[in-house]
């Protein structure tokens, strides 16, 4: 039952928090306590995992006639995602400390936390889909209510775009059930399917929207830019990871043969994303859009790593996913903070921030450098592992992905120049940059994570390696 609480307690707690919260300022403490509790539970789950395979956490609400069972099972891959999610939730919670209408805001965060845990814990396709869809709801409100001036367009676009993609996923799940007779993702084997190619494509496109990969990425710049900064961080750090997680679990590990046949599709889409978004970021003078495109560009890198279908590549991809969460989030937070205080998005209006807010600027530079893959940060570890694994899988021409990191250097260093260095612009001079303690704490923690795992990634890789080992040692995949 414990596992069930992790999902449904937050989901059902959200309603009273929303209705009864009367701005006593208690809700955020409850939410934070809950997130910390979820982290401890995730750590505990990690400790209980068997050497290989799944840890069964029980089945509920069984409808045998439709194989509609809330079966909760976790393996290393999912627990890693749970850990990432709960860490992100805590940090995002901290950085939302001074949000307006905080009761409703935190109620939605709490709702989101339950739904996202559901995504990573359920192994029944239908329930997976239910939670998958459920994560959209709080995001819709978070973007729509707390967002910036273009929030409505962004929220509706985000909601509809990803919802359409979900429909493809649902159809794929139905086809799987029709052909294999089960909704249990641990039981489905590729050989049971009659139209594996169709199912593969439906799922690939569906998940590609969430990741997002070119050409399905256009919801992201809008949603990320308009969302309040912590929500952008949550979107980038958790929601996109959901797409990548599903991509790894269902598109690659569940259907290795199709994945091998269409690996080139993932690879080319990833490459196009990497460069297309990279150039977009170079083009943007809008600070947060630049960060958003940088985020897409990095997810392209993740897709490239996934396309190797190899033990090494998937490990690299998972590391890059975690790294991306910790790197892009502070960039979004800082970009949002700057906008909040100056009222401008244009990098041309800024300059000389270092003179007003040296520590904030330093953290911006740190995360930016991590994003461009400077050694000593998580970004570098991600890039070097992806480089090595893709060369091994696809050949030496994969060194071209480094041009993507050159592009990243271009737009990030140029953005430092425009925002942080140089003479102080009037706008920066007049704005107040004193940062609330909690928000700064969260940024600091992000910075620490980036450096610690950038210098010493071994503990993280031990978890990651174990997560994929069973798939590759059993002889299933290469």
């Amino acid at each position: 039952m414990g596992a069930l609480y992790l999902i449904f307690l937050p989901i059902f707690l959200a309603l009273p928090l929303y209705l009864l919260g009367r701005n006593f300022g208690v809700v955020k403490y409850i939410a934070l306590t809950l997130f910390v509790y979820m982290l401890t539970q995730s750590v505990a789950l990690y400790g209980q995992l068997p050497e290989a395979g799944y840890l069964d956490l029980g089945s509920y609400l069984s409808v045998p006639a439709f194989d509609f069972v809330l079966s909760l099972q976790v393996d290393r891959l999912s627990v890693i995602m749970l850990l990432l999610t709960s860490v992100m939730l805590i940090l995002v919670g901290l950085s939302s400390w001074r949000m307006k209408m905080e009761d409703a805001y935190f109620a939605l965060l709490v709702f989101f936390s339950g739904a996202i845990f559901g995504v990573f814990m359920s192994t029944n396709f239908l329930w997976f889909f239910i939670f998958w869809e459920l994560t959209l709801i709080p995001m819709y409100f978070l973007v729509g209510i707390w967002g910036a001036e273009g929030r409505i367009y962004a929220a509706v676009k985000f909601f509809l775009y990803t919802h359409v993609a979900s429909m493809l996923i649902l159809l794929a799940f139905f086809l799987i059930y029709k052909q294999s007779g089960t909704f249990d993702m641990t039981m489905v084997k590729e050989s049971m399917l009659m139209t594996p190619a169709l199912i593969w494509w439906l799922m690939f496109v569906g998940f590609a929207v969430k990741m997002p990969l070119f050409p399905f990425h256009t919801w992201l710049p809008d949603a990320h830019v308009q969302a309040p900064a912590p929500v952008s961080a949550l979107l980038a750090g958790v929601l996109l990871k959901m797409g990548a997680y599903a991509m790894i679990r269902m598109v690659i590990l569940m259907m290795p043969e199709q994945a091998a046949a269409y690996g080139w599709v993932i690879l080319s889409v990833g490459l196009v994303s990497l460069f297309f978004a990279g150039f977009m970021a170079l083009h943007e003078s809008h600070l947060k859009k630049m960060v958003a495109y940088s985020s897409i560009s990095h997810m392209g890198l993740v897709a490239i790593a996934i396309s190797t279908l190899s033990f090494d590549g998937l490990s690299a991809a998972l590391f890059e996913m975690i790294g991306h969460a910790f790197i892009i989030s502070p960039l979004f937070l800082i970009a949002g903070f700057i906008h909040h205080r100056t009222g401008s998005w244009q990098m041309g209006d800024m300059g000389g921030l270092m003179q007003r807010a040296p520590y904030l600027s330093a953290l911006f530079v740190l995360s930016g450098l991590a994003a461009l893959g400077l050694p000593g940060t998580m970004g570098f570890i991600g890039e070097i592992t992806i480089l090595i694994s893709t060369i091994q899988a696809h050949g030496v021409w994969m060194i071209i992905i480094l041009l993507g990191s050159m592009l990243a250097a271009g737009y990030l260093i140029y953005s430092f120049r425009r925002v942080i260095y140089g003479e102080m612009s009037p706008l920066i001079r007049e704005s107040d940059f004193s940062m609330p303690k909690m928000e700064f704490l969260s940024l600091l923690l992000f910075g620490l994570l980036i450096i610690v795992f950038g210098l010493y990634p071994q503990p993280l890789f031990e978890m990651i390696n174990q997560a994929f080992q069973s798939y590759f040692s059993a002889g299933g995949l290469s």
Partner: protein
Amino acid sequence: MTLTVLLLLPFVGALLTFIAGKMKASLAFWLAEVIGLILFAATLILFSSYTEPIVVNITWFSFGHNTLPFGIYIDHLSLVMLLIATGLGALDIHFAHDYMKEDPDQARYYAKVLFFIGGMILLVTAKELTALFVGWEFMGLASYLLISFWHQNSAPADAGVSAFLYTRFGDIFLFAALGLLFYYTGTLDLQKINALASNGAIDSGVSFVIAIFIFVAAIGKSGQFPLFPWLMRAMEGPTTVSALIHGATMVNSGIYIVARMFDFYVAADALVIVAAVASLSAFIGASSALVQSEIKKVLAYSTMSHLSLAFIGLGVGSLAAGMTHLTNHAVFKALLFLGAGAVIMSAHHTKDLWKFGGAYKMLTLVAIFMGIGALSLSGIPPLSGYFSKDAILVDSLVNPQTNGLISTLTIIAGLLSIAYIGRLWVLIFAGKPRDKALNEKMTTPSKFWISLPLGIMALVTIVLGFFQTPLAEYITGEAFEEVHLAYFAPLLLGTMALIAFVIYKFYLANTEARDKLAAQPLMKALHQLLFNGYYVERMITWFAKSVVVGFVARTIAWLEHHVVDGAVNATVGLSSAIVARLSQTHSHRISNQAGAMMLGALLIISILLIKGL
């Protein structure tokens, strides 16, 4: 223990320095000075107790089936580099006491300098390409941060951007080489790679490509053609930084990496490319240095040119010549830069050569020490520069691959050294003051803080001249055979004397002739060409700004907004058009509605009839 101190102290020290400096500004300097000295001492201990290469194997992390190492390897080559880095580092920090005295951000300055030294140490003690790359990038970062140290002004901020981007462009090639080497050899251990290449275990085509990739990175880091413009701009940083990073240490790392992988380069047959690119750079650097009007720019072009000479030394196949020149150059260039720093400081941050003149009186000691550095740079015996430069020039003539255009360019560049450095010295110290007001304001620098480090370096420059052969043998581990061309030394010295005379004439005795010559249109054009560094920066900037940002990125943005996202947004227009059509079918009149129902019923029934009944 010593090793741990050497590798970790700079980084820990940087952090401590920053924190201490934030509490009390003067603490930053003292802490940095002490740490600098400890590092130098640790290097000396290593140096004196050295018996055989120190190897420490460390596993960094494993992912999938791969394991990435992060080992340490220290041999003679590393030790020499360590001595340069920590020795000059300590002197530089000492010098900065006065130079940075009035800066409010000392904590940040010393922390960054220590971080830089740490990166350099990491680079030269790396066993594998991984640690080397980490050190390489740390230095690049430190260089970027220090060039932009005075971030509140636009020029240093811009200079930082170009420094980072130019070197980063090279770095991705090193990164690629890392990936390729791991793929083809399965190891990143530099010694193993050298051995494998020598044994012919790596396909020569592959190793040639990898060698070129690594060399591109070296070009970026060491300011060679065509990636040199950042080095000139880097002069916007504090002069102490220019001395340490952009004169003496970091810019050497390109040469170091080629030297470190010398056997690999020999096996890959790539040395001639190194020599060719370097000779071109040497010529560009030397000729551009002739006409610069800023003290530091002259020195920057001179650095470029002399690094090229070291590259040529390697390129013509002489590890000894290249590395001794690197060592000599590091010392005398640090001396010249710091000397220039002393001049600039005394002149209240005036950098324009033409405003000086006759500064000998106020800055006697500095003038003498800089003179020694200038003589060494020019290649006057018995100073250190003479031996290594002479060896390189001779080697380039003797090597059949490089005899010709490469050796010609090299010799011209070598000869021009005396011209531009002579011009520099003459314009600053000799003659009469051109700007009286400035001359009167000039102050005499402190003996302990400023002249002492200069003196030490001048001394080393002189002493090194007598230890060239042992140094070469120490680095290469082989008996040093000097190649001699009997006619060469007299010819060289004779030409140099001639050039010195011309400089004397033009800049001291008969300045009118010079001005007349300079007024010629052809000379003007030539002057502009040289002054702007052959317009290389303008071309690269044009490519980056107009082609990459202006054309490619803009095209992609157009595609994004009008095609990719345009298609998504078009769905709104599409559905409103559909709705408009559908609305026409809807009538609110009851009669129409009833009619539609009957018509529909008829339609359905007739379809069924046609279909199956």
